[in-house]
């Protein structure tokens, strides 16, 4: 087990290293991407550009620049090229909004996804099941930014039932916090509710065909006990794996669209703004953070999976 964990850790580090190199290269091979020229502005003379280039070390070989940048990522000295703000501070500033969005939406989509999925499986083949199946497909076919924009405009701006956007810190006003997040949570969760209910339905139906269900029935357990205590418990395993991974993606800036439509000013929006200005350091930092969450939760999911499912063995 220890050897396995160490190997897994090494693989994680290698993946993150490659991610950082890829992002760094993307921003260094852009022909119009010379950061010194953009920082100096349009009217700058060649000597001014040259001075900035030397001051920020853009004249160094590319691997030296990479090493310097990566050192700064870990020491917290990373500075944005365009507005010269401290990148780590900006990420920390955006993190509460992103965390609130991710956690709330993840809870909603898990609960609703499991409820709909289990219900559909119980009613398999009947009208309710068909209806849920089609609704789930509708849910995964609607672009989140379109739905979000419509919700923000019609329920927020026009009807005034909810705030049309913005983030209210939890510490300042817990009720306002939830009130501001209702629409973003709903918009983001909808996609996953559709997906999860489908996965759970398939998994429950699959479980019902397993021999252990016959055994449980033969023992004289009620149909409800069989379903909840045996089938549903096992069917949750793939859902929990999926949940961990999706949560990581949303946490690591994957909710860019929801964040920008509702103007939540979170980590994803910070990254989107930075990309639009070709500002490499914030993009590098946010992408690494996102990749870190994905890789870390991927490993956690595997370990939890092994703990829940005796058939998965660590070798």
């Amino acid at each position, binding site marked *: 087990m220890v050897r*396995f964990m160490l190997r897994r850790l090494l*693989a994680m580090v*290698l*993946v993150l290293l*490659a*991610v950082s190199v890829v*992002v760094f290269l*993307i*921003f260094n*091979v*852009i*022909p*119009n*991407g010379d950061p010194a020229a953009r920082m100096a502005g349009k009217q700058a003379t060649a000597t001014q550009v040259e001075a900035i280039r030397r001051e920020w070390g853009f004249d160094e070989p590319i691997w030296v620049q990479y090493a310097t940048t990566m050192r700064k990522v870990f020491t917290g000295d990373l500075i944005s090229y365009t507005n010269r703000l401290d990148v780590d501070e900006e990420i920390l500033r955006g993190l509460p909004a992103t965390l609130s969005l991710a956690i709330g939406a993840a809870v909603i989509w898990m609960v609703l996804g499991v409820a709909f999925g289990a219900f559909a499986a119980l009613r*398999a*083949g009947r009208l309710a099941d068909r209806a849920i199946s*089609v609704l789930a*497909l*509708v849910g*995964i*076919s609607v*672009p989140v*930014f*379109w739905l979000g*924009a419509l919700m923000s405009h019609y329920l927020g*701006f026009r009807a005034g039932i909810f705030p049309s956007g913005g983030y209210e810190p939890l510490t300042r006003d817990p009720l306002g916090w939830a009130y501001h997040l209702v629409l973003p949570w709903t918009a983001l969760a909808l*996609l996953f509710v559709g*997906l999860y209910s*489908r*996965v759970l339905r*398939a998994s429950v*139906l699959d479980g*019902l065909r397993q021999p252990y269900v016959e055994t449980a029935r033969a023992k004289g357990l009620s149909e409800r006990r069989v379903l909840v205590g045996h089938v549903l418990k096992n069917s949750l395993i*793939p859902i929990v*794996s999926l949940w961990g991974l*999706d949560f990581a*993606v949303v946490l*690591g*800036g*994957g909710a*860019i*669209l929801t964040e920008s*439509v509702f103007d939540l000013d979170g980590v*994803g929006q910070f990254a*989107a703004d930075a*990309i*639009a200005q*070709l500002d490499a350091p914030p993009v590098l930092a946010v*992408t690494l953070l*996102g*990749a870190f969450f*994905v*890789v870390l939760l991927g490993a956690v*999911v*595997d370990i939890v*999976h092994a703990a829940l499912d005796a058939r*998965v*063995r*660590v*070798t």
Partner: protein
Amino acid sequence: MTAWTSSAPPEALPSTPQEVRVDPVPPPVPPVGVRRLLRSRLVIASAVALGLLVAACIAAPLWAAAVAGTSPERTNASPDDTVVVDGEERSVLADDGRPIGPTWGRRFFLGADDEGRDVMVRLLYGGRASLAIGIGAALLTALLAVPLGLVAGYLRGPIDAVVTWALDVIWAFPVVLLGVALGVALALGGLKIGPIEIAGGSRLIPLLVIAVVYIPYMARPIRAQVRSLAEREFVEAARAQGAGPVRIMVAELLPNLTSTIVALVPLLMANAILLEAALSFLGAGVQPPDPSLGTMLRDGIERLTTAPHATLVPGLALVAAVLSINLLGDGVREALEGDAVADGS
């Protein structure tokens, strides 16, 4: 390589809106598959809907030239630009800049956008771009992912380790973030690989970006299935007859992957169309003034107050296209794998 990584459920892919069930031992394709597919009215309806959408997009130049008499890029922003509605002459853009709504006539059938462009014409051309990018990207993903999965799953060893690691790297990126970063960078600089050169504003760039981003979502399940297929007797038999690895991969393994590929491709198409819209919405996909459903939404959403039709029309078209592909894909999957219900449980 541990047995462990391969045992991770293939459906455990983030942001892939749908489960993909890859049985370790694929059930033989039932001969009733096609008949079962045709029996579902929903599947037929979605196939018809998708066919109509595609036909409408192909006919885009016809509508533009013969009916509306304009092009998708042509603006009508001056006060002299008018259109006759119910015998009454009205400006395309009102004095306050408010674009005209649907006229249900030949010109501006679905209204104008905030630059006075014909929404119907842009919708047809934009739908064309979005469908072409989505379908093209999904096919390119399949073209890249299937050989990767085959080679990694069958040859194992160092090749497998390298391919798996590369897939892990792409997979670790948040999808939209990677897509946006690549899209913005390439839109500015264009791309040059050997003799192939793609200009910065080209639609091939979002297509390429989307195809690359989704490779792991297809290559991983293929690799897992190849690994389990490789243990089966028919592969053993082929090897005993002296078949080389290439022959085994192409002639023995590939035919057995058909149902997995057929099940995954519609899913990829639906997701690719959605990702194109998202990238264009964030300014990293199709570049203006070229229309796509994503760029139309980007223009429209800022104008929800005065011109809701400019947001509702492309959004509904997008949902219709993605939903019909998803319904169709679902029907195909059910026909191939057999639904648990249909098999009786």
